């Protein structure tokens, strides 16, 4: 099975083409640039280099969030439209799981970290169990302070991973001391090759209804739902 994997959840952009578990090519950049400008030229360029036609791809794998709302939508829209228009399979994988999969330590909890502003983070809790990367806790949006406190009540050691972990490492150290450490410098960037392999073993999504996992409602929506708990779940888009 040929796979195209796309991750534009944060500043880094990563794309990869795989034949099952074999990585045929990968491109990862980590500069401040608009993903909308660079993503499709990058896919076009990589496919050209590999002499693979887009029609030959059997499955498109997208990092589905959390992350930057705009970044996620660029990757997810591109992935779902490609999958739909070519009638190929679509798979979504947690962007936090992609980061966690860069770690290899089976003896500790892997804590992927993305900054979510105002002291908050997107994070999760992963562990290799019987050689398989497993989510011990669901991905969540939480204050770094609270997450560190939560972890401090658990036994074991923790590995922080992701470009943004350095912004929050002190918060974790203050509660976990020597029980927390940072992953190695080359492990912090999301790699679409890793995403592709995770996607190989994930369930296929319904293409039309596939949307990013933002892990957070838009602020206006959140306030509205608090005021109208009885109306949540109604449909607000209609054909005219």
């Amino acid at each position, binding site marked *: 099975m040929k796979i195209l994997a796309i991750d534009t959840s944060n500043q880094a952009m990563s794309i990869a083409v795989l034949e099952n578990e074999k990585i045929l090519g990968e491109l990862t950049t980590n500069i401040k640039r608009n993903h*909308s*400008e660079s993503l*499709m030229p990058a896919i076009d360029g990589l496919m050209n280099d590999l002499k693979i036609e887009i029609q030959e791809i059997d499955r498109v794998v997208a990092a589905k969030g959390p992350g930057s709302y705009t970044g996620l*939508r*660029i990757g997810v829209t591109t992935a779902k*439209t490609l999958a739909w228009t070519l009638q190929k399979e679509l798979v979504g994988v947690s962007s936090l799981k992609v980061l966690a999969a860069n770690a290899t330590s089976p003896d500790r909890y892997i804590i992927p970290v993305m900054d979510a502003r105002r002291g908050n983070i997107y994070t999760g809790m992963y562990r290799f169990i019987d050689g398989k990367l497993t989510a011990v806790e669901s991905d969540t949006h939480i204050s770094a302070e609270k997450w560190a406190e939560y972890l401090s009540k658990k036994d074991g050691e923790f590995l922080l991973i992701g470009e943004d972990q350095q912004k929050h490492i002190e918060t974790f150290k203050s509660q976990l001391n020597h029980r927390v450490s940072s992953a190695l410098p080359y492990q912090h960037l999301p790699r679409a090759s890793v995403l592709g392999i995770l996607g190989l073993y994930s369930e296929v999504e319904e293409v*039309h209804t596939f*949307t990013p996992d933002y892990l957070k409602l838009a602020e*206006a929506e959140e306030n509205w739902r608090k005021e109208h708990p009885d109306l949540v779940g109604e449909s607000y*888009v209609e054909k005219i």
Partner: protein
Amino acid sequence: MEKNWILAIESSCDETSAAVIENGEVILSNIVASQIKSHMRFGGVVPEIASRHHVEQITLIIEEAMEEANVTYEDLSAVAVTEGPGLVGALLIGVNAAKAVAFAHNLPLIAVNHMAGHIYSNKFVHSMKFPLLALVVSGGHTELVYMAEDGSYEIIGETRDDAAGEAYDKIGRVLGLPYPGGKIIDEMAHKGKDVYNFPRAMLKEDNYDFSFSGLKSSFINKVHNAEQKGEELNANDLAASFQASVIEVLVTKTLRAVKEYDVNQLLLAGGVAANKGLREALSDVMAKEAPEVELVIPPLSLCGDNAAMIGAAGFVEFNKQQFAGYDLNAKPGLLLG
């Protein structure tokens, strides 16, 4: 004649739309999913929520447009998409979906200006006779555009502050009307009389620019003063007085430009082109004062945002073989011309 079919996509604000257009003038399909019910909850369009709805809808709407038109990708000549102006997050969904379809099927990609789209919605009613003038009035724009030929746009006048549609939305809020207020104000205006004599901004000035923020302030002051004094104002008369000011300025300046520029046609375009008062006033004045100039007004179904108009404007670029690269980005502040 050779038939060129263009798949067009529009997502600049709160409508997700896709259409298939033949030779820039025949609508094979035009599917529009409106988010208006969602944004009514907040009294205006919330950009982040608009972007989220677009991702939910985009492939469904394109699929429906392709199915209704009964075309395959091999039948298509190009994919056209709105690149701007509009909400950046909303535009990005259409732009990235269009790029994916173009890339997947090796089709040329065409970037279309949303305002050019509004102007070209008239092409579904009548062929365009240049030189012409277009009055484009919407929630975000109020412009007089001179076109010497296909695809050439010269803005000869525009609003210096609020767009006409924006003023409608704002005074709608003051009157306690649900968002968007434009249609209701138009209906109320037909039941009331112009008794409050709101200012006609820039009416006499020797240019084709507009201003609606003074009118808006004057309206708000009138309502607040009355509230403080405990006076009752007639809401229908308020609506009629407001609308009379907007229309008089738009129509008077447009007529002056029509004469000055010696055009063959006057096109009305944009969301506010659905306003009954404006349609009637423009028709009356043109019939009396410039009967030699043909007035074209789009049907109500094509006044709001839709992808059909993007396909019509995109066909002009297609004929010029003016194509966009895969690095196409959303341009929220894109200007015409």
